């Protein structure tokens, strides 16, 4: 009988804990920042630190341009700039690229960087047994030659208009043969920062490379702190524990930071096309009229306002609005529930239909999903929502394609090519589109490329492959005295080279 007496107290304590435990992060103590060090907040912890062996964006967000560099680099505006290659020339037929390397470059372990390292890095990435997550970047390369220590010649199978851009990806960085195998836990590159240490589950520390070949970093030390919980992230910013969040996880907190004179809020663009992905071969969804009905049933602006607190640009196809080749197709499917109902009736679903909607953890998906479910219900499409964790999403949706609808943001730059893949989770198989992509890959002339890209965008919109929602905004928030962080994120990176305190 004693047990019965004790349990009410315990239960009430548990209930109180559920209600008020949420406030605990606010108790994190403040820390004073020295002027030559910076603490940067990040949501996801990288699985390891080798950008040539993993697809996780978090890896690049730590090491790209800080620890590792490639032949070219992509700057904050998305333009291709020279990095370890000082300059290059392209043959008239577009099949041979000759790179002249920077001189006096050393890896962090003291060994020198020359053309042999370039050949090693590229061959390693292209090899049969390569674990590179973006092997397609190197598809067009036939061979890598090294006429002398300062020159690299890349021969192509066919002209590749995006080779220089591809070589600027984190997956194409230069590594040394002696240290490449250990890069996952002890990354050794040529960049302005060397790897300090990694306290798993908490932070990664970077230290200035005093022997850097280029303009040295202005920060002596940078700490990248992993804070997965949005409430804790808010508390850490307010407490001054973290100096900057390049991409803050909770858009709803922006208003609060904006009102606080200690912070600067910078809303930029990302390469994240956020879509309501459709399983194109699943039952009713294989009918283009049904997919078009879904597109007409969704009010993008309401999703942006409700899920992202107004931050985000509506898109009508799978393409970043800030790219020069972008075609505005948001008018193709205006918010029109009546039209959606008519299309559904035409396809034989006037009595409505039932679809599953699987939502991964980010707030754009969880919140956006609830809003979209309500909008779809208005036109008679009943959705069965299930919330899944990332591991479950990758397993069920991405690999298993066991879903009808899902919401996800595709954050890789220029990734319209995924629609031409033979197997991809939205199961869009279209010979015309594949033809367009093949033609694009073989085209070097910029104007012709833009024309093909425009055709591709229109094709995706016409087929209503997915419901294209909005371009994810980058919710940057940092201390007002921090200068030099990227406002936009054309690639997944936190380039700290030029960052300093005022």
């Amino acid at each position: 009988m004693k047990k019965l007496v004790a349990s009410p107290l315990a239960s009430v304590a548990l209930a109180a804990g559920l209600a008020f435990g949420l406030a605990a992060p606010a108790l994190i103590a403040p820390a004073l920042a020295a002027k030559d060090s910076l603490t940067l907040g990040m949501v996801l912890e990288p699985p390891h630190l080798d950008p040539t062996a993993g697809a996780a964006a978090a890896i690049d967000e730590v090491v790209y341009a800080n620890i590792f560099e490639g032949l070219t680099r992509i700057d904050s505006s998305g333009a291709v700039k020279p990095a370890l290659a000082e300059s290059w020339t392209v043959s008239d037929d577009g099949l041979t690229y000759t790179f002249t390397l920077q001189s006096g470059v050393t890896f962090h372990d003291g060994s020198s960087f020359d053309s042999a390292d370039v050949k090693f890095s590229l061959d390693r990435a292209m090899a049969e047994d390569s674990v590179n997550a973006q092997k397609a970047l190197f598809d067009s390369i036939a061979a890598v030659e090294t006429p002398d220590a300062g020159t690299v010649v890349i021969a192509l199978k066919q002209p590749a208009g995006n080779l220089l851009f591809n070589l600027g990806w984190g997956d194409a960085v230069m590594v040394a043969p002696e240290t490449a195998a250990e890069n996952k836990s002890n990354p050794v590159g040529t960049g302005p920062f060397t790897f300090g240490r990694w306290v798993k589950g908490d932070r990664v520390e970077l230290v200035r490379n005093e022997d850097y070949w280029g303009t040295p970093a202005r920060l002596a030390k940078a700490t990248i702190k992993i804070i997965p919980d949005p409430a804790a992230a808010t508390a850490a910013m307010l407490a001054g524990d973290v100096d900057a969040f390049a991409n803050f996880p909770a858009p709803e907190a922006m208003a609060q930071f904006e009102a606080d004179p200690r912070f600067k809020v910078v809303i930029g663009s990302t390469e994240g096309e956020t879509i309501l992905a459709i399983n194109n071969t699943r039952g009713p969804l294989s009918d283009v009229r049904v997919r078009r009905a879904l597109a007409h049933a969704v009010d993008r602006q309401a999703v942006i306002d409700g899920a992202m607190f107004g931050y985000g640009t509506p898109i009508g196809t799978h393409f970043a609005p800030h790219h020069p080749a972008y075609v505005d197709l948001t008018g193709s499917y205006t918010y029109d529930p009546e039209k959606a109902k008519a299309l559904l009736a035409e396809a034989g679903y006037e009595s409505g239909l039932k679809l599953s909607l699987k939502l991964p953890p980010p707030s754009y998906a969880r919140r956006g999903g609830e809003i979209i479910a309500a909008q779809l219900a208005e036109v008679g499409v009943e959705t069965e929502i299930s919330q899944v964790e990332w591991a479950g999403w990758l397993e069920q949706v991405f690999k298993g394609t066991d879903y009808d609808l899902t919401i996800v943001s595709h954050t890789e730059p220029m990734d319209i090519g995924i629609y031409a893949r033979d197997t991809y989770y939205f199961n869009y198989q279209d010979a015309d589109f594949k033809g367009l992509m093949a033609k694009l890959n073989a085209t070097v002339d910029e104007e012709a490329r833009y024309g093909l890209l425009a055709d591709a965008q229109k094709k995706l919109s016409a087929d209503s492959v997915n419901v294209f929602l909005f371009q994810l905004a980058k919710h940057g928030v940092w201390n007002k005295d921090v200068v030099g962080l990227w406002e936009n994120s054309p690639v997944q990176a936190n380039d700290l080279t030029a960052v300093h305190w005022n």
Partner: protein
Amino acid sequence: MSSETRVASLREFWQRGRGQANLMIGLLVTLLLVALAAVSLFWTPYPVNAIDIPAKLQPPSAAHWLGTDQFGRDVLSRIMAGARNSIAVSLVAVGIGAGIGVPLGALAAARRGWVEEVVMRFNDFTFAFPALLSAVMITALLGPGAVNSIIAIGIFNIPVFARLTRGAALSLWQRDFVLAARVAGRGRTRITLDHILPNIASLLIVQMTIQFALAILAEAGLSYLGLGTQPPDPSWGKMLNEAQTLMFLAPQLAIFPGLAIMVTVLGLNLLGDGLRDLLDPRLRRLR
């Protein structure tokens, strides 16, 4: 435990219970909860799942007594519907627990021997895992959803009832009136139904109220973790989860569902406490 618990009339209960503050407060809170849930079946101030983005995150006002959430949904309406959800989940889950646990416990006490061994070792196995953890494991296995969370909570309720029933029944089996019934030639099943169960009913009722409170907490916990009730249907636990990132912007979104859970659990526990005092004759004598 008295050997001759009489089935007291409602009037008698009322007269004895009126003086107990615990019981009265608990009863009041529980009735209020049931009323809230019942009303929500016919009427809520606003449609429960109606999204109205322009009206989002409003503080409490005359139009929205408890304010609105991040989608402009009325918080009061959702708390009312959430009460219904909590009650439904807990009622069925405790029903599963008692429905399976009580017969198992009674069987173990009546049969003894290897039957008892099997039943009790199974109980020990289930008991070895903390209740909420096993519920999390079960929903992870079956997939998230209201129905699966009911099953999960129900399963961890089984050993609680099985143990309680067996323990109380065992002592009853030694009593003279049961021995007399056996001598008279009545079967074990008959005796269990006629003598054992009626005599432990009060004990079970008290335990049910306690388990009911725990089930409400468990449902809130599972939903908080995203394993219970799925959106857009409201659940107190899920409301807490959604409020998490909005704590600084709209703290009321966490406070109201949190209060709802706390008051409900407190009420049910007070009710259980009061009922125990009322139904346990031994304790009554001590006073």
